[in-house]
């Protein structure tokens, strides 16, 4: 992406407004609080896209909760291409042995990354492992994964904002919008 991102003009439509997102986050927070009352809960956020969702969700949860962050390499990244295997770029900083864990994702599409993470985290002996995602794009699913807490099911469109990026831009938008195709399509 060589052009300078335009946070207003590059958005063709607002798919989810800030108000819609916040209402959903509160709802998810309530559900999680009810489901894990009296239990040791850890939220594991997958960098970078889920940061805003994580920040809002943890504050919508009314029980004691720990947080942790993980980052995994993505296919096609030059740093990992030589190995040909996914790599944990940032691992958990605390043990989740015996704790109830919720993976917090911004979006689930193919499910490949999440499938890997689930297997990885199961190996660390959590008491339970659940999945929470703000956005679910089932049209692109390759690996079926049971989602325990789902914010919105969205159509097969390129979405940005509220943590979601294109070329590392647009993450700071307060809503989820659809990126104009001319931004990412090759003019040739």
């Amino acid at each position, binding site marked *: 992406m060589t052009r300078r991102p335009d946070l207003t003009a590059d958005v063709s439509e607002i798919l989810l407004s800030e108000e819609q997102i916040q209402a959903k986050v509160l709802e998810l927070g309530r559900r999680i609080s009810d489901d894990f009352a009296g239990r040791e809960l850890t939220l594991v956020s997958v960098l970078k896209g889920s940061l805003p969702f994580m920040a809002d969700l943890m504050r919508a949860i009314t029980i004691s909760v720990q947080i942790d962050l993980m980052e995994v390499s993505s296919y096609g990244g030059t740093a990992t291409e030589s190995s*040909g295997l996914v790599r944990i770029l940032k691992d958990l900083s605390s043990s989740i042995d015996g704790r109830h864990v919720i993976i917090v994702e911004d979006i689930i599409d193919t499910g490949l990354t999440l499938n890997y993470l689930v297997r990885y985290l199961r190996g660390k002996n959590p008491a339970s492992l659940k999945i929470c995602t703000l956005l679910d794009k089932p049209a692109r699913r390759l690996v079926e994964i049971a989602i325990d807490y789902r914010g919105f099911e969205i159509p097969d469109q390129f979405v940005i904002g509220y943590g979601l990026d294109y070329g590392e831009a647009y993450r700071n938008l307060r809503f989820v919008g659809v990126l104009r195709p001319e931004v990412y399509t090759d003019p040739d």
Partner: protein
Amino acid sequence: MDLDADLDVRPAPAFAHASEAELARILDFYAVAWEYEPHTFPILFDRSGTVIESFSPDFYLPELDLYVELTTLKQRLVRKKNRKLRRLRELYPDIRIKLLYARDFRALLFKYGKLSLADALTGADGQTTPPKVRPPRHTAGTLPAETPPAPAETPPAPAVAGLGPGGRPADDPARRPDHGRRRARRTRAEARARGALQLSAAGEPGGTEVTA
């Protein structure tokens, strides 16, 4: 936990299409076990019960019990594939199979910053086996003397070597590189030889993708 520990390094199969090799690399990257065309399903029979058409999905993901068929070719061929898939689902309703169209595959490439490879990996450009050559058509009485006669019209070959009894899906050992469902890790040398593995300079588009 080391998810890579039980990876089994073995030679890559002879993929029929560069897109299949790329999908195999993606699956390898995320440690998803796969087998290449391990099963053949008879889908059409003549009146005597002889198999006259069969279907071999490109991939089987044993841990997910899911078949994946990848098609990046023209709409005419997609229609044929769709028909085969419908037939497969009619005859084998318990089978889980996902068809990835060209747009789905392009979306995958876009997601992983490899959209620049789309043309090389899709359509006829991505074929790694030569297309079937049809014998030249001749009208009666014009057959050149030194040209072998064109073969008579025959039903399509079953191509179901190893067909199981009772018309059940065949599990052809010759096409199945690994009888055990061990995790497969493929070398990339084959794809490199095809010039398919060229890293794109495009940025990682995060968790979003698009229909091209």
